[in-house]
């Protein structure tokens, strides 16, 4: 029966050929490791967010008078609403973590180098989009934490001279966070960001496939001889087949992702919900401890530390720009990070600094 369907499709779209080239004959380089699956996990994470988000959309009401109550209804009245809400909330944090880990491993394995610069750029843009997703979604439950964290974040652009105020006004839709802001962030979160994200993801995946998987530089002589002056898709005739080996790796990493997610939902359900996240927003009452989400803590702490606010923001923007353009700025041809102690040192200390700033921002 299955073969009949397959044949029917094959006559029309050449399904067999597609299957043959992209699954059966697709070969991975011999020295890929488990970290190569992180990109796939990011896609799965996004799909989970999209599904749970659409499910939540069925009951959520995006107006300040009803937002908190509708989320509470999802948590207490709607049967199993809490499952999907928790998956969405925990998943958003996990997805950002996965995206960051993917980025770190790609960097350390030098897989951003020629000819993969555009893939890297697309990836950083995806990370930024993911963080904007997190930001816009944070406001939607309309809790004290949502309201005040958003107030702080939308106030940060004011550090810019001249255009700063305008930017903040555009973000907030007014002088302070109000129902206009909520509508704005809601529209952003469900209708502007998803197609943008899918577009960039499609481009990113297209590049990955078109250029070919990059082999790790460790323990083997680099197969890609530089310089490359014409297009050549990288293939590995003596590598191992994508299916079933690598596919299985992707599958059990996906299981690991959901295991972590449900571990947090079972044993640490309040991990991402401090006290202020459980009470409705009160525009007249600033709580004692307002925390941006953890992924924004390091930039936030940096901003607090640097006495000149304009310089603080500029520094962060410049760092992000360097990050985006790194493949172009990195002129050394050596791909193996173990042979580049300076880069390794700088990168690892930047990560350490990020974690330290994050931890410092906790208090």
């Amino acid at each position, binding site marked *: 029966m299955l073969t009949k369907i397959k044949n029917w499709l094959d006559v029309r779209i050449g399904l067999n050929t597609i299957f043959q080239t992209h699954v059966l004959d697709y070969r991975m380089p011999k020295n890929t490791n488990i970290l190569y699956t992180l990109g796939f996990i990011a896609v799965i994470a996004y799909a989970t967010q999209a599904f749970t988000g659409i499910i939540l959309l069925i009951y959520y009401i995006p107006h300040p*008078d009803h937002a908190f109550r509708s989320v509470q209804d999802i948590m207490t009245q709607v*049967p199993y609403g809490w499952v999907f809400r928790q998956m969405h909330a925990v998943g958003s944090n996990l997805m950002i973590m996965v995206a960051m880990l993917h980025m770190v491993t790609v960097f350390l394995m030098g897989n951003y180098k020629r000819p993969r610069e555009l893939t890297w750029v697309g990836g950083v843009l995806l990370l930024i989009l993911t963080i904007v997703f997190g930001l816009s979604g944070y406001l939607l439950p309309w809790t004290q934490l949502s309201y005040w964290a958003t107030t702080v974040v939308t106030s940060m652009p004011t550090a810019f001279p001249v255009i700063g105020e305008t930017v903040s006004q555009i973000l907030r839709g007014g002088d302070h966070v109000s129902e206009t802001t909520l509508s704005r962030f809601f529209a952003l979160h469900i209708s502007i960001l998803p197609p943008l994200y899918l577009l960039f993801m499609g481009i990113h995946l297209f590049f990955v496939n078109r250029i070919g998987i990059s082999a790790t530089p460790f323990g083997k002589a680099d197969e890609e001889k530089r310089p490359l002056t014409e297009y050549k898709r990288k293939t590995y005739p003596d590598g191992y087949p994508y299916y079933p080996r690598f596919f299985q790796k992707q599958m059990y990493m996906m299981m690991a992702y959901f295991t972590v997610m449900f571990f947090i939902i079972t044993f640490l359900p309040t991990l991402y919900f401090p006290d202020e996240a459980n009470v409705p927003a009160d525009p007249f009452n600033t709580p004692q401890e307002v925390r941006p989400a953890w992924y924004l803590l390091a930039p936030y702490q940096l901003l607090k530390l640097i006495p000149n606010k304009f310089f603080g923001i500029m520094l962060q923007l410049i760092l992000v720009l360097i990050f985006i353009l790194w493949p172009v700025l990195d002129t050394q041809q050596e791909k193996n990070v173990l042979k580049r102690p300076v880069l390794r040192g700088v990168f690892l200390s930047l990560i350490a600094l990020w974690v330290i700033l994050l931890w410092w921002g906790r208090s």
Partner: protein
Amino acid sequence: MTLGGMMKRRRFLKILLAFLGSITFLSFAYSFLKFLTSLPSKSADLQKLTIHKSDVPSGEAKNIIYHNTPAVIINRPDKGYFAFSRTCTHLGCLVEYSKSNLKFICPCHAGIYDLDGSVVSGPPPKPMTAIPLKIEGETIIIG
């Protein structure tokens, strides 16, 4: 391990995987279906309160219990019957009908509502929650 042993082991693992996978999928599917179909208001519809018109003379109000919460039904001479929840929208005290002032007054912090439930003065942030009612002949059905 012999080849036959290996194959048996693989088959067992695959069956176990299929079993677990379908249980997980079915659990999610079941949760999702219940999520979509069981709306809580359905069960609440069953409890309706019926009282007689004669219980609420013109210009008077009567305190009732509707769905375990205190409520009040008022007979306004010019506008007819209205029902509201007595829970003050400020902090939850029970408002009292004041015939002399023709208002609902909350004894805790002097929140004053008009007879249509809207806030006149005081700390309440929102008007009183209205409860729908139907009039059939001589009886009033609340809910």
